[in-house]
């Protein structure tokens, strides 16, 4: 009885799937999916090698510090970094005093006046997080042609290919290819958007942020080319998204080494216990 009912159920599911298969295949033949500009012109990210890559990866603090400078002087005009605190900057090689001074350079930390209870602002403390450029999303949209600049704290973990994507996006702005406009006249980049083949739908609201060499002046004398600035800020955002990466890699090596020794000894114990037992 069980087998008979099972046979009927099996035939029902397999039969409906056969019908569905027929529908999908005939749909594909009669109405083949049209090619889209996104499908034809979207590019995979360029290669980007960073010191933090791979199991041995460590942060290159000088590069991460340069990236912080790019963030502060360029990105921070629109993008928040709300999950990162000033005190975290000690992890990328700044001293206590430098962190305090850096925090104090911000005088727009939202606060309450302790005497009057009115909304106020104060100087930054090491324990504060990076202040956001806009008080809320509505203000951010109002100032950015109705586009919302996303928070950057986790950006390199929140996109496929993380840092490589970011680097490609920052250096990928170009004019729309004539080929695209010829084949997909409807996909012309709308006014107010910018063509970027690394962006999912090819048209991004963010204007090119890094445009000219020397847009920031690096303190360590590195030549601030657009490519260099894009790499540095990508490296910085790898750190903001995964500040414990170095500790994780170090702990990982100790753990795997320990487990290899453990497994080696456990294997010896296993062979020893079973030495007279055929199996």
């Amino acid at each position, binding site marked *: 009885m069980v087998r008979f009912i*099972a046979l009927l159920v099996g035939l029902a599911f397999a039969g*409906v*799937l056969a019908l569905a*298969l027929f*529908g999908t295949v005939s749909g*594909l033949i009669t109405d083949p999916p049209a090619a889209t500009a996104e499908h034809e012109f979207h590019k995979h990210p360029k290669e980007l090698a960073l010191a933090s890559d791979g199991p041995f990866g460590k942060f290159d603090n000088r590069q991460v510090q340069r990236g912080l400078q790019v963030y502060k002087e360029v990105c921070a005009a629109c993008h928040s970094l709300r999950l990162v605190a000033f005190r975290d900057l000690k992890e990328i090689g700044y001293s206590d005093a430098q962190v305090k001074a850096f925090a104090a350079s911000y005088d727009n930390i939202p606060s309450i006046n302790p005497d009057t209870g009115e909304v106020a602002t104060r100087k930054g403390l090491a324990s504060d997080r990076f202040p956001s450029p806009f008080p809320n999303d509505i203000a951010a949209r109002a100032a950015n042609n109705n586009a919302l600049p996303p928070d950057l704290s986790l950006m390199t973990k929140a996109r496929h290919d993380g840092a490589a994507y970011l680097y490609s996006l920052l250096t990928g702005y170009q004019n729309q290819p004539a080929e695209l406009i010829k084949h997909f006249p409807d996909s012309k980049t709308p006014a107010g958007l910018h063509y970027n083949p690394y962006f999912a739908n090819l048209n991004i609201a963010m204007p090119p942020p890094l445009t000219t060499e020397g847009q920031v002046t690096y303190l360590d004398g590195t030549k601030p080319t657009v490519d260099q600035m894009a790499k540095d800020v990508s490296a910085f955002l790898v750190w903001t998204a995964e*500040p414990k990466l170095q500790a994780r890699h170090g702990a990982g090596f100790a753990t795997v080494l320990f487990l290899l020794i453990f497994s080696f000894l456990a*294997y010896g114990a296993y062979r*020893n216990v079973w030495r007279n037992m055929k*199996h």
Partner: protein
Amino acid sequence: MSFPWAKQYQPQNSLMKWVDERLPVPRLVYNAVGAGYPVPRNLNYFWNFGVLAGAALGIQIITGIVLAMHYAANGAIAFDSVEHIMRDVNAGWLLRYAHANGASMFFIVVYLHIFRGLYYGSYKAPREMVWLLGVVIFLLMMATAFMGYVLPWGQMSFWGAQVITGFFSAIPGVGETIRVWLLGGYAPDDAALNRFFSLHYLLPFVIAGVIILHIWALHIPGSNNPTGVEVKGEQDTVPFHPYYTAKDGFGLGIFLIVFAVLLFFYPNYLGHPDNYIPANPLSTPAHIVPEWYFWPFYAILRAFTVDFILPAKLWGVLAMFGSILLLFFLPWLDSSPVRSNNYRPKARIAFWVLVADVLILGYCGGSAADPVYVILSQICGAYYFAHFLIILPMISRSERPTPLPNSITEAVLAKHGGTSPAHTALTPAASS
């Protein structure tokens, strides 16, 4: 329970004797996973995965309890509380990555455990109850994992919850009412997040309870083995301790190495980037994908694209639940008395086709719903149901199994002495 030659617990000192006479917990442990449990001597490495699944559950419960001390189940702060764990809690990143990847490791070992059971016919009489309880554990695991994935309140958390609870709206008539009742609102929000957190904390302990029943039921007939031939005498078995504790110790080492490499070097490899974007009810992700361990079932759900008597969505939901529920009937669908596929030439071929089929379904379930993947899902989905409900019952009637060894010991000695099992099946067992 167990075999007559099983060793009996002997308290080693007066304290243990005192305990044993009043509450024989040491005796219980001794009989369950000590020298008092005789186990077939020929188990291969596939028999490690039960213990490993237990270890994985233990890791999940311990890391989960500590994570719950720092997590806040409230839509406004859940996402940030997870980032607080990652950034400010001592070793919080270790706890969270261990818990997130521990779920994947749990499913990997459980899938291998199920694979073992299917290949070697461990679901057959007299072990049907072990199998049924195993399927219950699997269902509980899926529910727990789904609710756990909602807790970080990222984009995939939110939209995953939206899609999965949406299944209930496929029920004719009352579906939408049930969905709203389950969620505590029209869309996932604080009410849903709180109840998911509560249940996510509860269910692992329910799983632990069902595992106790699973092991209890296993110990009545004793473990199956690669030949599928029942234990005939004492020479066929070894005591669990030290033989299999030693082997499981080695297996645990390898399991932990794989786990550690994943956790410390590729912690986000199995996750989805969108879950690092805070939940936003107004922005639907381009592709809503569940965690990898649900992909084969997700592919089956999406394969039903045609309204035939019932709406396509209802077919998909029925098929998706049906694809797991049919496992409850497997012991009666496969009527062949031979357990191990080593001796079942036809069933073995069907089995490997099924393995490939499920892997392809998994790949399709993880991909965007392109027509190519939909077509593949439809073909593979149809084979999945056909395998369990049509092909396997038919094979088990018509198939002629190859000769079985007379006993486990005979098979072991044939392996070492070079005598082919086909011959020894007809001749008396070689002396041991």
